[in-house]
């Protein structure tokens, strides 16, 4: 049983990390703020989600697992809003320029 869970963890975290690497690459390669944001938001959400999902079996307790999910939810929430803010300020600066 633990073996299956471990394999699951390794697989999920690996895929999650893969998404992060993609996001980092996109961040470096894309030309402007908006496209970079686009890449980051999509990939970060999935990446972090997968890592948290993969770590759930290792959390050890229900409280620990709940905390992990809370972390993920908070990042989802603040990430979505901060992305909005950055996008708006990028657009504003574009108009001013």
């Amino acid at each position: 049983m633990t073996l299956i869970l471990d394999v699951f963890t390794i697989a999920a975290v690996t895929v999650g990390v893969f998404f992060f690497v993609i996001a980092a690459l996109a961040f470096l390669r894309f030309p402007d703020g908006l496209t970079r944001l686009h890449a980051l938001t999509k990939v970060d959400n999935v990446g972090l989600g997968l890592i948290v999902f993969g770590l759930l079996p290792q959390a050890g307790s229900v409280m620990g697992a709940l905390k992990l999910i809370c972390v993920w939810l908070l990042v989802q929430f603040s990430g979505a809003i901060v992305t909005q803010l950055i996008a708006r300020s990028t657009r504003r600066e574009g108009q001013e320029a």
Partner: protein
Amino acid sequence: MASVFDVTLVCLILAVGAWSTFARLTFSAIVIFIVYGLLLSLAWVRLAAVDVALTEAAIGSGVTGMLLLNAVARLRSTDAAPTPSRSSVNIAAGVFCTLITASLAGLVLVPPQVPVSLAPSVMESLGQSGLGNPVAGVLFVYRSLDTLLEKVVLVLALIAVWSLAPDGLWGGKPALRPFPQRDSVLIFLARTVPPIGIMVGIYMFWVGADEPGGAFQGGAVLAAMWILVMIAGLAAVPPTSSHALRLALIVGPVVFLAIGILGIFLTGTFLAYPEGYAKPLIIAIEATLTVSIGVTLAMHVVGPPEKEWRS
């Protein structure tokens, strides 16, 4: 396996630190510095110092980052054409710093045969205080004089920051640069996150007695929430002459000092806690300190009183 992670982490810290030092734009340097702070907190976790990791992330990277970003936003117009120092100076400085690094590295590579540690004696008497977190024990029991003095430093530094206000504006409002226009998304964030943040802050202080956390980390989270609300324009920045503000600034140090003096009468010693009452008294100190630290950190970030900012 552990070492691969550690080596990568250290390389990353050094690379990001160097990047922050040599980045062309000051703005980039500061953003990179915030990343650097977060990486450092990871290093602190690896060094089995979770309390420090939390403090580094909250204060060393978080609040300091806000402070520096605020500064660079105002300095942007002057961020032009730094005159590079002469190469002879650079070379001399390089040699000098390499020498320092090398001598320190030499010491690191030859650790003492018998590692020194006060951990056993800390644990031996920790039980008397009823605390479970040894770091909290050091901060509030064994070396409480340091902690008390450090609170005074924090308040004094705020008076020092305020002292930079022009004469006529003393007691006025700090001019936190507001967001250009009332932004619905920001307001939404400032309405939804603070309840969670305040809960997290209080939780951090509350578990601090027994687990990693405490007044510093909790206070930093509270400060961040308050700043967020002020930036969004949901709450006005209080004038520095406000009585409530000043009471909030000093309530922590005053309670700390009062309990310290109480120790003289009850136990005969300054900053000693009467037997059996150590934990409740320390929690009282930490609770008030959390408020004071939160308010002081936030006021540090918003800066001295200034004329209203006009864009």
